[in-house]
């Protein structure tokens, strides 16, 4: 990923992505948390290319424009329900057109998952309403494992109440966090990096400050992000989106007042395990060895390559997506050509997924799916949060088990039609969220150490001897026991001559 980064930025810039520029016309690069020189010993690095504070938005529109130029067929308002698998290989997808209620079996030699993460399994998250772990759940229902689900990143600056994200670039441009006493508390927790320490360190520091009673506001339950000391034209040039977000969602003028922020679920480091070409991996049940799944690829937040490990650095999500999305495309282009035949499939493929969907559509229980979703989100937010203990995780697992049983037995779907049935679609999304939540809780309970964003108060240290491995979780149907397995971490680089492997060291700021 690091090797392809510069090339990728040039490619995007050639596509027309509007990066911010310096005076001499080069692409503007800013500091971002966790980025350093000399493998951590050389101070802060300024290498994050940005387009004001909406790099992702700019990238989305640039790539969409490019895709329209090429022969891309978009099926809008189609909701993918399940993967179609034949003999362990993926042959296509079963999906529903929400617009007219028809179901479609789409057969394809190659399927690429790019469905995003599952932030919506938490009560307060920065993700969109569609971030419901659909790809992860489809893979789980196909009997394949998901990797490293226990690592959920809490972003330090989500607006208190709304949960909308204030980008790390605000701290990169010079903003800092204050507690109720007006103190820049990050200097105590991370003397060198201060506010630009890694996101999990900052989130934990904020949580500790709030727990020890130094939180702000009437309920003392958040801290403040101060940007008003920065020059006004810097704010309006480099952070215009934040100025608008803060005024819309928090009613604050950032040039005069600080923003109330809280650690909010932002990114799921875990996902479908892939190799560096983007091919999905699974563990062969007979021999215990790893193998690739034919015809299935994954890229972005849904996948876990994993370049982020237990904690993701800022700006790497966009880079990961573009580099490994491209890797999927190149692998597919190498192996496939236009007009190649499809594998033979049984006539009734996909009928079991349809039967499940029908059962959900006709459910006549007493609990609405919105209620089940609210319960799940609250359990995740209280028990499987920034700080975890054995008790909280066990209680969380048990409560999730009950919620899954409620989903299986007491679900009520009121809207029975097929056209624009948002009740049905949200229930299917809830089904996906539940399996992601259950696998998160299961792997969090099993991992008895603190690593990156998985912080356990009863096991506060990192244990490289015992726990330097990826967790794999399987759960075929909601309510099933989550099976936890492990997989070795790849400690070497692809080419030791070009770039030596960096050995893990204790993290200190």
């Amino acid at each position, binding site marked *: 990923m690091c090797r392809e980064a510069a090339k990728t930025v040039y490619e995007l810039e050639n596509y027309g992505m509007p990066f911010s520029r310096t005076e001499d016309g080069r692409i503007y690069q800013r500091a971002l948390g966790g980025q350093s020189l000399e493998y951590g010993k050389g101070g802060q690095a300024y290498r994050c290319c940005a387009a004001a504070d909406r790099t992702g938005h700019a990238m989305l529109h640039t790539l969409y424009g490019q895709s329209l130029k090429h022969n891309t*067929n978009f*099926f809008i308002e189609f909701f993918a329900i399940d993967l179609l698998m034949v003999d362990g290989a993926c042959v296509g997808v079963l999906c529903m057109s929400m*617009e*007219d209620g*028809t179901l479609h079996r789409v057969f394809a030699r190659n399927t690429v998952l790019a469905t995003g993460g599952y932030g919506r399994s938490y009560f307060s998250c920065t993700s969109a309403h569609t971030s419901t772990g659909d790809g992860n759940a489809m893979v789980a229902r196909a009997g394949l494992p998901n990797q490293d689900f226990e690592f959920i990143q809490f972003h330090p600056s989500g607006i208190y109440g709304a949960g909308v994200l204030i980008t790390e670039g605000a701290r990169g441009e010079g903003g800092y966090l204050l507690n109720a006493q007006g103190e820049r508390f990050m200097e105590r927790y991370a003397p060198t990096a201060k506010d630009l320490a890694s996101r999990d360190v900052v989130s934990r520091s904020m949580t500790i400050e709030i727990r020890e009673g130094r939180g702000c506001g009437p309920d003392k339950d958040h801290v403040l992000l101060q940007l008003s000391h920065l020059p006004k034209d810097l704010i309006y040039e480099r952070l215009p989106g934040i100025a608008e977000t803060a005024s819309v969602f928090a009613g604050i003028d950032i040039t005069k007042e600080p923003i109330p922020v809280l650690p909010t679920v932002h990114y799921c480091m875990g996902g479908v395990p892939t190799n560096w070409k983007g091919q999905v991996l699974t563990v062969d049940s007979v021999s215990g060895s790893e193998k690739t799944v034919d015809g299935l690829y994954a890229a972005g937040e849904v996948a876990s390559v994993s370049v982020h490990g237990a904690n993701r650095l800022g700006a790497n999500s966009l880079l990961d997506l573009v580099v490994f999305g491209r890797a999927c495309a190149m692998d597919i282009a190498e192996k496939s050509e236009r007009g190649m035949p499809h594998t033979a499939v049984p006539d009734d493929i996909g009928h079991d997924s349809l039967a499940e969907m029908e059962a959900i559509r006709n459910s006549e229980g007493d609990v609405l799916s919105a209620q089940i979703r609210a319960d799940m989100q609250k359990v995740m937010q209280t028990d499987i949060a920034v700080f975890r203990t054995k008790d909280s995780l066990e209680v969380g697992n048990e409560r999730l088990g009950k919620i899954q049983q409620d989903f299986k037995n007491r679900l009520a779907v009121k809207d029975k039609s097929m056209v624009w049935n948002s009740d049905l679609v949200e229930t299917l999304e809830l089904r996906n969220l539940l399996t992601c939540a259950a696998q998160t809780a299961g792997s969090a309970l099993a991992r008895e150490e603190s690593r990156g964003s998985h912080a356990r108060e009863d096991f506060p240290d990192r244990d490289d001897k015992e726990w330097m491995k990826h967790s794999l979780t399987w759960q075929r149907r909601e309510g099933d026991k989550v099976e936890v397995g492990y997989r070795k971490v790849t400690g070497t680089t692809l080419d030791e001559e070009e770039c030596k492997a960096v050995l893990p060291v204790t993290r200190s700021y």
Partner: protein
Amino acid sequence: MARLSGLQRDVLTLYRRCLRACRTKPTETRANFERFTRKEFGKNMALDKKDFGTIEFLLRKGTRQLEIYEQAGVRNIAG
């Protein structure tokens, strides 16, 4: 027979386009597509011929469905 109105002609044009698209489908599944077309049109036969709003909406919906189903990749249809 009385002269057909513009709207009636549009409906018949859409039906003709659908049947022409059916002829491009593989032989084994052609009957499925034709049956589907007749059923879809048959669903709304009892509509009042003066209900212009509904007829125009159904025409738009039918055109959208035709655009998706006439693609070369779609090879079979059920229901």
